[in-house]
């Protein structure tokens, strides 16, 4: 049975990974033998300079999901490379490093830093963080997306994934712009801008007023966005948005995704990605599928 997939020149042993910002401290909490089975690991987004994050409360649960406004709290690229990356590398699973720049220059500076680092499979550009106070996100404008991705592509020695925001009219327009700019793959979707109100105090629940909705609540919308995008572009898609089970993972693969990531549901069931992987193998065996590529985009209409 062949489960391996490719994005640009990067090869992954299987299509199951974790979404940025939802996986950490593997060395302390998880059975590393189990974590080693993942197809890839995507650490939390790293910015050029350290960010302290948003004021609490930063999360609230919703019907079948959650809203978060973490504010990309991270130690900055240099500290990440010096202190966190060695631990991630030790796990031995291909790494997709998520980066976010507040300007084109910052994106390029980040790429330069990671060009000097070995042991990375690919770079994911977080073009879609809804928590920082820009008017329009890069991922909400095809021209900006094309501009950032093409500059990054010229500089990077690693394959580039563009991570897109669902807070747009037609996500496939942005996807097409990223493809035209030379992206090796796409990650979709990030979270939907959302809010919650405390009716006792009539104040917003989140310290940041708004946040991003994720979890099973967004899965059907994410699935449609992945399907629509897969119809339009040829580059591989890493799909995420509410995935919690084998069946969810299968739906996204059949809709055209090359890889699937478990995000929010890691918080409910930390073994969800591994269970989805086991289930995927069982499904392939039961259906006599020898290569995962037979499954990808196999939707019958």
């Amino acid at each position, binding site marked *: 049975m062949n489960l391996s997939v490719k994005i640009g020149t990067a090869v992954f042993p299987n299509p199951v990974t974790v979404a940025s*910002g*939802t*996986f*950490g*401290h593997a060395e*302390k*909490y*998880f*059975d*590393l033998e189990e974590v080693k089975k993942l197809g890839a690991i995507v650490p*939390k987004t790293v910015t050029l300079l350290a960010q*302290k*994050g948003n*004021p*609490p*409360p*930063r*999360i*609230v*649960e*919703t*019907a*079948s*999901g*959650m809203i*978060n406004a*973490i504010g990309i*709290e991270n130690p900055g690229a240099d500290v990440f490379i010096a202190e966190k990356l060695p631990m991630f590398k030790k796990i031995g699973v291909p790494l997709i490093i998520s980066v976010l720049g507040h300007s084109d220059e910052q994106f390029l500076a980040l790429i330069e830093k990671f060009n000097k680092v070995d042991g990375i499979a690919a770079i994911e550009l977080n073009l879609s963080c809804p928590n920082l106070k820009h008017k329009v996100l890069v991922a909400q404008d095809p021209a900006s997306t094309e501009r950032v991705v093409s500059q990054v592509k010229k500089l990077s020695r690693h394959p580039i994934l563009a991570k897109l925001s669902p807070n747009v009219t037609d996500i496939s327009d942005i996807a097409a712009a990223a493809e035209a700019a030379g992206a090796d793959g796409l990650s979709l979707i990030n979270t939907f801008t959302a809010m919650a109100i405390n009716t006792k105090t009539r104040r917003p629940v989140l310290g940041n007023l708004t946040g991003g909705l994720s*979890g*099973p609540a967004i899965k059907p919308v994410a699935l449609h966005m992945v399907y629509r995008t897969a119809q339009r572009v040829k580059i591989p898609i890493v799909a995420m948005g509410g995935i919690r089970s084998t069946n969810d993972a299968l739906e996204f693969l059949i809709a055209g995704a090359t890889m699937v990531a478990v995000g*929010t549901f*890691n*918080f*409910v*069931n*930390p*073994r969800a990605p591994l269970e989805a992987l086991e289930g995927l193998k069982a499904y392939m065996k039961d259906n006599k599928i020898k290569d995962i590529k037979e499954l990808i985009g196999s939707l019958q209409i």
Partner: protein
Amino acid sequence: MEKIQNKFRVVANEKLCPRFYRLSLDAKSLVKAIKPGQFIHIRVKDSLEPFFRRPFSVYRANKTADIFYEAIGPGTKILSEKKKGDELDILGPLGNSFSLPPKGTKTVVMVAGGIGVAPFLIFSDSLKNKGYDLILLYGARTKGHTFNMKDFKKNGCKVYVATDDGSVGVKGRVSQLFSKIPLDPKTTFLYTCGPNPMMAAVQAFAKENNLAGQASCEEVMACALGACLGCSIETTGGYKTVCYDGPVFDLQEVKFH
């Protein structure tokens, strides 16, 4: 390495007073591993509602691992309906633990508000017969929030109670009981757990009197593994996660709002 995620069976789930329940789990690996002040993260139901797990301090770990909880919302209500033999999906032990009192400590004072008393039974289990004077100051809203504290007394704790309505013990907030705290910074060490306004009062009192201590904090949690950075609170050292850097912090380090 011990697995962090396990299924454990409920051995008992009893109402100990009108507001509080004690749930005991057949969880040998937890009993062995848990340190006073640590917590567990419980999936109260195998469904999407409620969505998050719920965090609870471990109340006691002898034969069984016990939690002591107040049924205040949908998650804790579901928990209160669990029966002997039911299975629960649990992450734990999680977080740091109370440090031992510094050298020279004679009096350990635990200041608890409401269900914040939970981590202090396992803590007093670990401190008994060690030569400390143990004092528990317990503040509760009403009589319904008070319970038989014989387990604390058996551990040698001197227990003082205050209720908001005066139905049990002294009338007023737990701060009415601060007069019981020996004011010698060299020999008194404080621990507190409860609502933020109460812990803020303990912090102010400690500062005024140069007493050192630790506070066990709460915040809404998603992962409880230090991964999502969702449970951060403000400290003098910047934002820190309650689940991974805490729940126990230096008393003066936390900025209570």
